[in-house]
């Protein structure tokens, strides 16, 4: 699975995700990537999110929208919401994976509870960052 999230100079957020699914999948199995609110979500009031991992868990936990709601209704920061959902709630759920997220002022969070996540990010004209492991 691959994904991207962005905040542009007009203050608009956007998110996108694409995947080939799981090797050897059958029965038309679909994961979270095409599901708005589970694998992909963007809302100018809160954040933009793209997820990757074990789709069944991300669907059942409605991960992307869950983080947006925690920010909108509970007033959590992007960091607090991401840490809670990815490092606590999903882990208890048994859902391995991670996500990339950006909020309305450009903060970037890249939480994951697996051993690694291919990720890269940049803010304004700061140097680009690329990482695989924690």
């Amino acid at each position: 699975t691959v994904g991207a999230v962005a905040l542009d100079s007009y203050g608009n957020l956007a998110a996108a995700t694409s995947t080939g699914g799981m090797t050897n999948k059958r029965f038309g199995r679909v994961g979270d990537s095409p599901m708005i609110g589970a694998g992909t979500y963007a809302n100018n009031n809160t954040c933009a999110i793209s997820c990757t991992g074990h789709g069944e868990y991300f669907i059942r936990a409605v991960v992307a929208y869950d983080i947006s709601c925690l920010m909108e209704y509970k007033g959590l920061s992007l960091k607090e919401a991401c840490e809670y959902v990815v490092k606590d709630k999903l882990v208890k759920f048994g859902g391995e994976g991670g996500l990339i997220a950006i909020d309305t002022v450009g903060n970037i969070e890249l939480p994951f509870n697996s051993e690694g996540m291919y990720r890269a990010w940049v803010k304004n004209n700061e140097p680009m960052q690329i990482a695989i492991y924690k």
Partner: protein
Amino acid sequence: MKKFSFAIHGGAGTILPSLMTAEKEATYKLGLSTALSIGTAILQNGGSSLDAVEAAVASLEDFPLFNAGKGAVFTNKGTHEMDASIMDGKTLEAGAVSGVSKIRNPIKLARIIKEKSGHVFLCGSEAEVFAKTQGVLFETDDYFYTEERYQQWQDVKHTDTYQMDHSDKLETGEKKFG
């Protein structure tokens, strides 16, 4: 100076350091930096976040090592079934597609679904029919063939298991459904 923030991912999982040669790591990082640069250039030039995420994901779809587009894994039938979605934070409009084959960039189809279909989520062969009416680029099965993905499939194709992209774990499904 235009202010923007931008992030991309290429999947998460059990990425075993023992299997990651320095050469392979450099190749993965090249794929990530290329996609990041494409999106960043759009944002630096005052382009929209929607254009940036679509262009970056399309670049990752064209890169054979990530599980999307050209690098998509094999299904049990030896085909490729791809999913994609995109969402605009300003309008809350979204486009999504699932279970399509032979489409070079599913994220571009997702964007067209958002803007031209009057729907949010299309799937399967009928989504491919819509894609053809919109001039979306199709490729042959050979385009989606990589030796690594083929071997990954060969390892599990005669079993009831399936495998996430970056994982050494084979799943059977019982655990997940409790």
